[in-house]
């Protein structure tokens, strides 16, 4: 009743107001990124804080307030699935003011998505080489699904690496300075504080940043952007962690100009599928905004996610089969009967920013931001010296090491293989210490490793590899609406990053100290105490005694990586009737360098005064033996000029049709992690380091009307001059080597389709999504392989079979009737075609069909089926070289080339998923609700989501061929649930 009275009063006031003037306000409410009309948007017109009219936008998003007097007005605009916004308008001279378009940003409806879950383990040697694409709702059917719905299978949109997706926080580009990875783990667990965000996909224009060709995600992140009120939630799930508790408060704008917000959470426990994986993570966010009138606003926020998480690892299929479990994780073992994970990521990286917003008038807005990221990021791993490899699934522990049916493997002991199989019998509990990390044995080894002083020298230890960043951003951007047709955004970004990379002793595992020497160097230079030192200066200054590392001590390697990046950008958006034109330009200057803090014995270099360093024991000139390589001090700078240009055109037709096209060229600096041959040990740059060039284009058609929504996009992208650096043990050299590839080119082409169709039953709709692409390599990169211990070049060549594998012609041998490879008159084998090699670890075909039902009583149900196809294994470049294909005898045969170069394609996968939810309102103030998602209903546990080829080679007994080691795989988890309960007011 009260509501009815209010409406009547308001209506009366509105009528009174209208009766007083002839002016008005009109416009069209549109989706800010998609530019499509927002039907039924609610508009509330206020003057001096008093509501004087309300109305709903028409089907085409248009609205009109009439009969207004001259004066200042405020319009609040909101719609389901969008963030509400306010517009200030002045009506003058009794005219109708045309606002043209009032844009609404899509609200992130995936508050429970913990993006970090898919990204935080994607660092070096976790097995995954990249993370899936995380997109957030842009009110676009395709993005809704591809952004999160496909993440279980680690889908990468358009096959791009995650570093191509730009992630902004409060206007600052947050991608990792040295890897380019998207940085979601910095705010994982702060879903509410970071809920307000916008996402553009592909090349689409985004006015607050140029972006690249894989979209922009902009998280607002200030206190005023956090949803007003209290919110508490409890989440339990079987796939990541057992429990998450979260609490949030946001004041919203207060009368005194302040907005404050806080968000805290805790995530605890393991999951049902992968033993050893666990969370003990906390998160906090505190932010405050203060407005002074409409002109000045200062925002401040600080947040972090301190905690630790146990990681999983990939294994070979042989191990999975023996354990009867594709979820087997080789990282953990029992210590005193308790599960202990050897790979634990420990982080505490606070991010703090302050933003000053100056809005002198409705048409001009300037943001100045300073942001600082600091703290620690550690990742533990087992370390050992002069002792057997402790990893349970090390290849020498497997039956295949002892017996292979093919005699040419020269592995012929079935009896030993039987012992190995028995050792991996998961039903024999006594063998748990063979099947998992044997902590007891490592401790016992250390207990008995007594030196001459009776102290225990650890042979096994747990190291913690640190990448501790200090990342400072100074950003200024401006948004200027020059007139109702033309907007210009621009800015300047300055970034300085100083990161210390080192490892420290996390646990001596019952020992007293660990010796700071390089065991890989010792293998080649066992006779030289000086050359095996990780910290030669310490050794020289301590009477030729190697450093003894206690718990917490730094050892192994220690270097700084530096980056300075400056860029200027501008983005002009011009609208003329139904045509939108967008032109973005960016130019930048990027500098990177390394500064070694350790003088490594292998690469001693010279003293600062240029004098040579002499081994006091052998008298050898260590500077000479460094062969011009240095480990300590600065590498000198590499500078890169970068630039981007983007052009977009869009034409909107009445009836909800829209056509758009984009084109862009991007010249980006290489990242630090791919710029140095072996940054752990020396200042040696990758040869011919150059910028990465990408050309990208797309063409789209959109339709949005009467609940029908459709988008079809075709895209075409070429990426050139990528660099990749890796290190591995080369069996042919019996040594650890570095492998640098330059000139890696890719081509990504395909189509995206998203459609939503309302069905005759109210609230029921059907949606379909298809992503179909061909993402391939288009070059044979150049490789340089060097010895890690000496920097000597051992191979330099093109990776001959990186781009494709030849398919040789076969004929029937008339004598034997067998199929043989056909040769021409000169004896050359005839190639009848080539098999392309694909950009790996993401399905090139992904599709979903979903049935969605929402009731007026706030129930929702969704059932969807997903199909994935054409996902490929990450390739090891060594296997694609002439060297590996030729085998020890140096003769390439078609059999060898076909075997060695073939790229594995994963089997297609079908998944069925279900979601259900409901919310209740109490007293029009309190809201309770739950959502339950059950993924992979059919409990399919044979879906490979990624993996990699090992780099080792086995030489055949005939000395003619090399064999590959088995690849390692990751599998998707079986049926999993996620239940979320929330309470807000």
């Amino acid at each position: 009743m009260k509501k009815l009275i209010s409406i009547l009063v308001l209506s009366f006031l509105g009528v009174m107001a209208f009766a007083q003037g002839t002016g008005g306000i009109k416009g069209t409410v549109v989706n800010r990124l998609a530019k499509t009309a927002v039907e039924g948007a609610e508009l509330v017109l206020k003057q001096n804080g008093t509501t004087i009219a309300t109305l709903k936008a028409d089907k085409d998003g248009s609205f009109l307030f009439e009969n207004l007097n001259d004066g200042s007005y405020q319009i609040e605009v909101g719609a389901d699935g969008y963030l509400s916004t306010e517009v200030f308008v002045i009506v003058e001279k009794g005219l109708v003011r045309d606002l043209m378009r009032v844009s609404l940003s899509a609200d992130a409806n995936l508050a429970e998505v913990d993006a970090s879950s898919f990204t935080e383990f994607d660092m070096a040697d976790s097995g995954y080489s990249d993370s899936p694409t995380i997109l957030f709702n842009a009110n676009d059917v395709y993005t809704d699904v591809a952004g999160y719905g496909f993440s279980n299978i680690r889908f990468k949109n358009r096959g791009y690496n995650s570093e191509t997706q730009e992630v902004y926080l409060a206007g600052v580009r947050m991608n990792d300075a040295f890897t380019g990875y998207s940085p979601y783990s910095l705010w994982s667990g702060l879903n509410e504080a970071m809920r307000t965000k916008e996402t553009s996909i592909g090349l689409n224009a985004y006015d607050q940043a140029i972006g690249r060709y894989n979209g922009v995600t902009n998280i607002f992140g200030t206190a005023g952007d956090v949803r007003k009120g209290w919110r508490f939630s409890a989440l339990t799930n079987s796939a990541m962690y057992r429990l998450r508790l979260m609490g949030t408060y946001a004041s919203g704008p207060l009368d005194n100009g302040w907005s404050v917000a806080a968000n805290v959470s805790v995530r605890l426990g393991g999951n049902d599928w992968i033993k050893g994986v666990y969370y003990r993570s906390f998160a906090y966010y505190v932010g405050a905004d203060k407005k002074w009138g409409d002109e000045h606003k200062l925002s401040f926020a600080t947040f972090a996610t301190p905690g630790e998480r146990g990681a999983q690892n990939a294994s070979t299929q042989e191990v999975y089969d023996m354990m009867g479990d594709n979820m087997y994780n080789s990282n953990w073992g029992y210590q005193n009967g308790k599960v202990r994970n050897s790979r634990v990521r420990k982080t505490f990286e606070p991010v703090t920013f302050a933003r000053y917003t100056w809005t002198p008038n409705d048409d001009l807005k300037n943001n100045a931001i300073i942001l600082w990221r600091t703290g620690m990021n550690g990742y533990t791993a087992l370390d050992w010296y002069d002792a057997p490899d402790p990893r349970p699934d090390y290849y020498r522990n497997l039956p295949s090491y002892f017996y292979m049916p093919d005699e040419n493997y020269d592995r012929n002991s079935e009896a030993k293989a039987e012992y190995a199989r028995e050792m991996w019998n998961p039903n024999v509990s006594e063998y748990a210490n063979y099947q998992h990390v044997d902590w007891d044995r490592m401790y016992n080894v250390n207990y008995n490793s007594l030196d001459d002083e009776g102290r225990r020298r650890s042979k096994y230890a747990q190291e913690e590899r640190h990448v501790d960043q200090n990342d400072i951003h100074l950003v200024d951007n401006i948004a200027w609406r020059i007139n109702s047709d033309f907007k210009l955004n621009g800015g300047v970004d300055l970034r300085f990053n100083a990161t210390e990379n080192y490892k420290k002793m996390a646990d001596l595992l019952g020992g007293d100290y660990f010796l700071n020497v390089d065991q890989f160097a010792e293998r080649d230079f066992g006779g030289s105490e000086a050359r095996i030192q990780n910290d030669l200066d310490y050794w020289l200054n301590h009477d030729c005694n190697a450093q003894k590392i206690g718990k917490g001590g730094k050892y192994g390697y220690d270097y700084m990586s530096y980056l300075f990046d400056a860029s200027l950008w501008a983005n002009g958006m011009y609208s003329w009737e139904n045509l939108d034109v967008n032109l973005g330009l960016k130019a930048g200057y990027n500098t990177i360098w390394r500064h070694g803090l350790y003088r490594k014995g292998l690469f001693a270099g010279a003293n600062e005064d240029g004098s040579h360093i002499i081994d006091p024991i052998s008298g050898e000139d260590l500077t000479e033996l460094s062969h011009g390589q240095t480990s300590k001090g600065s590498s000198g700078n590499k500078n890169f000029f970068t630039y981007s240009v983007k052009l977009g055109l869009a034409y909107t037709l009445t009836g909800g049709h829209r056509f758009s096209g984009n084109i862009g060229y991007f010249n980006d600096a290489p990242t630090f992690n791919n710029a140095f041959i072996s940054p752990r040990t020396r200042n040696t740059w990758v040869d011919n380091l150059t910028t990465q060039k990408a050309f990208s284009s797309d063409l789209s058609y959109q339709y949005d009307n009467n609940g029908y929504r459709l988008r079809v996009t075709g895209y075409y992208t070429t990426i050139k001059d990528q660099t990749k650096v890796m290190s591995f043990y080369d069996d042919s050299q019996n040594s650890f080597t570095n492998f640098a590839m330059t000139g890696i080119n890719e081509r990504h082409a395909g189509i995206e389709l998203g459609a939503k169709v309302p069905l005759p039953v109210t609230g029921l709709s059907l949606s379909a999504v298809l992503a179909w692409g061909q993402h391939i390599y288009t070059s044979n990169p150049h490789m340089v392989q060097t010895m890690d211990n000496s920097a000597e070049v051992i191979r330099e060549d093109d990776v001959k079979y990186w781009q494709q594998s030849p398919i040789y012609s076969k004929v029937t041998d008339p004598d034997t009737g067998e199929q043989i490879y056909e040769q021409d008159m000169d004896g050359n084998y005839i190639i009848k075609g080539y098999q392309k090699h694909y950009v790996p670890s993401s399905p090139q075909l992904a599709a979903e069909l979903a049935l969605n039902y929402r009731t007026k009583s706030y129930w929702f149900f969704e059932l969807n089926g997903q199909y994935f196809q054409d996902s490929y294994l990450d390739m090891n470049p060594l296997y694609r070289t002439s060297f590996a294909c030729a085998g020890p005898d140096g003769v390439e045969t078609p059999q060898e080339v076909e075997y060695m170069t073939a790229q594995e394609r994963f089997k297609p996968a079908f998944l069925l998923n279900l979601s259900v939810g409901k919310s209740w309102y109490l007293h029009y103030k309190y809201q309770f609700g739950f959502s339950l998602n059950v993924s992979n209903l059919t409990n399919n546990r044979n879906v490979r989501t990624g993996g990699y080829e090992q780099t080792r080679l086995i030489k055949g007994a005939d000395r003619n061929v090399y064999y590959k080691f088995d690849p390692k795989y990751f599998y998707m988890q079986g049926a999993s649930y996620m239940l979320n309960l929330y309470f807000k007011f």
Partner: protein
Amino acid sequence: MKKIFYSIIAISALVSCKGEFDPVFTGQYKNPKAYEYVTADDFDKITTIAELASKYTAHGAPFEMTDGCVIHGRVSTTDQPGNFYKSLYIQDGTGGMEIKIGQNGLTNNYLEGQEIFIACDGLWLGEYGYKSGDKNGNGMVQIGFDGTGTDYETSYLENKLLVDTHIYRGNPSDIQKVQPVTLAEAQLPAQNATIASCPYLGTMVTVEGLQYGWTNAYSEHETAFVLMYINSQMDKKNSANRIFISGDGTGVDRWGLSKERMDSYLTSGMWDDVQIGNAGDYNYGSVGDKQYKNLYIIDKGNELQEKAVEVLQKAVPAGCVARINTVYSNTYRGDDEIKTEDVTLEGGETVTLRYVETYPGIERAAYSVSQYFTVPGSKKLGLQIRTSGYGKFADAIMDPGIFTGSKTVTVTGVLTLYQGKIQVTVNRLDDITVK
């Protein structure tokens, strides 16, 4: 509605509590207990090493042990300095024996001086070196696993379960390092000795007063022996792949040859005249020939340069293992000397190649060295001191006085016979003293 809501709360609580902290413990882990160990009382009967060795009666007839015998002894060797690799020796009062365990870092599990027990059932008894050469193994009986299909009578155990179910550790606190016995010439083994005739075989011994070099059966003076391979990825038995550095004046002045040290030996030119191949099959040129060198071609090749490289490659005699490395590189090590060579193409055109000459054509790898000595006494017995190139003292320079004869060597190590020749393998460099 309340029912539904409370049901959800209840289910959630149940699910959350189910094994919440059970799967992963994240508190402070307690140190595990020390391993339990065995004593002789844990076994019905202990067989002596001499008794066990005596069961091997016929050369070339290794066998699986099935009679339940258990031997024990103290570990006399350590693989920590790297001269022993993947196996260890134990000895009791009756003799010593090698156990071919086949794992790295053995000294971490089986401490030098620790008592260990071998439950022999399922393991094999064989003879060292029987299948190589033509002089039999001569008494060096060892324990391993079935060696069928391999080059040896026994193979390494290797597998963890196989090792752990046959080799048991004694008390790790009861460490009594084996004391060597100093042997005189008369106590050293004859060519065909066995443990029965020479109980010192396989045990830790000291031999004093060794003079550098020996005179072999052909009355030739020899000082050292190294077997190298042109390419270890290729057949190591192939004559074309083998280089014997032996005889007098080998220039090998170190106890072992590390991978790094091979650079200086190979590039010094002192082995340039050494013939490639086995005795009687020297048809593959000599170490100094160009085909055994690696040529890093400096300039990225144009067509003529590539043809020139092909000419060089074709110049490699048929059957030779080596091939010229055709790396085009501007990333060779900066201090290497750049050389040039004029190559005449088939058409008569001359191309000048710039290159850096190194020796990966002959694989740079660590190699074991046998230094030859003569035992003082009337028999002029020869004795080899064997040191591995992977040993941590591999590059230790020998005292020049040894070569001049002004100094003698005293060695302490495990006494073995290999094809009738006496060898002493040391644990560490300190086991060799010069007087």
